[in-house]
């Protein structure tokens, strides 16, 4: 391909220039020589900057060449969706302050939620009973996750850590005593997720990095550098599609990472503000994002570009959280204006708007079997919708 040839030649020239400058730098410098080196370093920096600019525009060109049609045009012939009747079926009350995060257990009925007041609660969503409660040593527990086995939960926030609590069947046992500190970041923990097993946890942080940890030893297995600001969210690819995950951050970028190498393999920058939530499409070939710019967007990984925007002029508040229904046809978005908007993913239209929460919706997840979805809100409650 023409693009690769040009890049190859430029890259060779650049590395040749760098080698020359490195050699000059090694000799003990006299003052005039240092001044000359300064000028030469600046020239190299300028060359690199202009190369990066030209690469960026080449990238845009390549992506644009394949943009032959819009998703909603392809979907014109698909039957429209009818009216949806979705209501609050359960309300989980018990948190003393804003609910910040929640996750479903694989058993499709248990939920873990975390709050600004430092409490982490495990609920039975069928009965609304609280099964476990832990008080964290910090406030603003922004992240929580259920282990695949259902035997443990992970959580963290302003303590800059991710801790794992094994869940005991004995209600009287003090869960805090068995706590295991796994992840250590240099800023707040924004999201966490177990991988396919209870043995590894993926975290994202306000320190701008994501990291993969071994739960047993607390060892850092891989770190992911590339975001230029706080990373706010992450989602693992469905297990059939391999070892990748997507992260979104305050730098308006969504990055797709290879978990084994730590390499960023694709990057998308079309949002106009912080990306608060990312979620893979069920097939693993695409992912959705929700942002403070009041839009949700769909990015296709094979086409390497944004393929849909879900927005309306009347929607001006940020999206905090997104998730797909089981088939990927519906996209649910929790918004800062207290509502949930339900989008037809293929046609790009809104099919429903749901009211009920009395403050921002901060977190939203569809249950593992797709029978319901749960939302958490700054109004201190969680709601189950079906």
């Amino acid at each position, binding site marked *: 391909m023409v693009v690769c040839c040009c890049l190859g030649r430029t890259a060779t020239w*650049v590395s040749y220039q760098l080698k020359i400058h490195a050699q000059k730098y090694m000799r003990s410098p006299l003052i005039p020589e240092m001044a000359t080196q300064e000028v030469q370093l600046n020239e190299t920096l300028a060359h690199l900057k202009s190369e990066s600019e030209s690469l960026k525009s080449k990238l845009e060109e390549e992506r644009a060449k394949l943009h*032959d*049609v819009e998703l909603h045009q392809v979907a014109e012939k*698909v039957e429209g969706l009818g009216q949806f009747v979705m209501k609050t079926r359960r309300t989980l009350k018990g948190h003393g302050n804003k609910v910040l995060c929640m996750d479903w257990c694989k058993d499709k009925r248990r939920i873990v939620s975390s709050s600004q007041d430092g409490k982490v609660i495990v609920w039975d969503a069928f009965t609304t009973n609280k099964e476990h409660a832990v008080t964290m040593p910090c406030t603003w527990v922004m992240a929580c996750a259920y282990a695949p086995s259902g035997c443990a939960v992970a959580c963290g926030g302003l303590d800059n850590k991710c801790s794992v609590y094994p869940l005991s069947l004995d209600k009287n046992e003090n869960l805090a005593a068995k706590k295991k500190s796994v992840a250590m970041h240099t800023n707040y923990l924004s999201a966490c997720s177990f991988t396919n097993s209870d043995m590894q946890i993926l975290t994202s942080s306000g320190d701008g990095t994501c990291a993969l940890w071994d739960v047993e030893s607390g060892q850092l297995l891989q770190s992911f550098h590339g975001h230029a600001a706080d990373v706010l969210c992450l989602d693992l690819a469905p297990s059939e599609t391999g070892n990748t995950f997507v992260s979104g951050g305050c730098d308006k970028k969504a990055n797709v990472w290879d978990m084994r190498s730590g390499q960023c393999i694709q990057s998308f920058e079309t949002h106009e503000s912080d990306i608060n939530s990312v979620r893979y499409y069920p097939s693993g070939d695409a992912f959705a994002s929700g942002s403070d710019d009041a839009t949700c967007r769909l990015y296709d990984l*094979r086409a390497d570009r944004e393929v849909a925007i879900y927005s309306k002029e009347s929607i001006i508040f940020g999206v905090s959280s997104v998730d797909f229904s*089981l088939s*990927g*046809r519906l996209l649910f978005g929790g918004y800062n204006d207290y509502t949930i908007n339900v989008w037809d993913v293929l046609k790009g239209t809104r099919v429903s708007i749901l009211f009920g929460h009395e403050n921002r919706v901060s977190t939203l997840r569809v249950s593992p079997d797709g*029978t319901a979805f749960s939302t958490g809100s700054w109004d201190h409650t969680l709601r189950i919708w079906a």
Partner: protein
Amino acid sequence: MSGSSNIVAMKKVVLQLRLEAGINRVKVSQAAADLQQFCLQHAQHDPLLTGMSTSNNPFRPQKVCSFL
């Protein structure tokens, strides 16, 4: 000197961009068709889409039994 560390950082950016520029891409029409096909194939098994009947959905209210 900060000059050389800037260069190192810029070199990383350039290498990353080269990597991203070099990946294989498919046309949007193809990718969109595949997304659509996945949706339609799995539509029947999506309870929130099809609106499961009350008796099957554990969260919807059950019909109340009354003693005669």
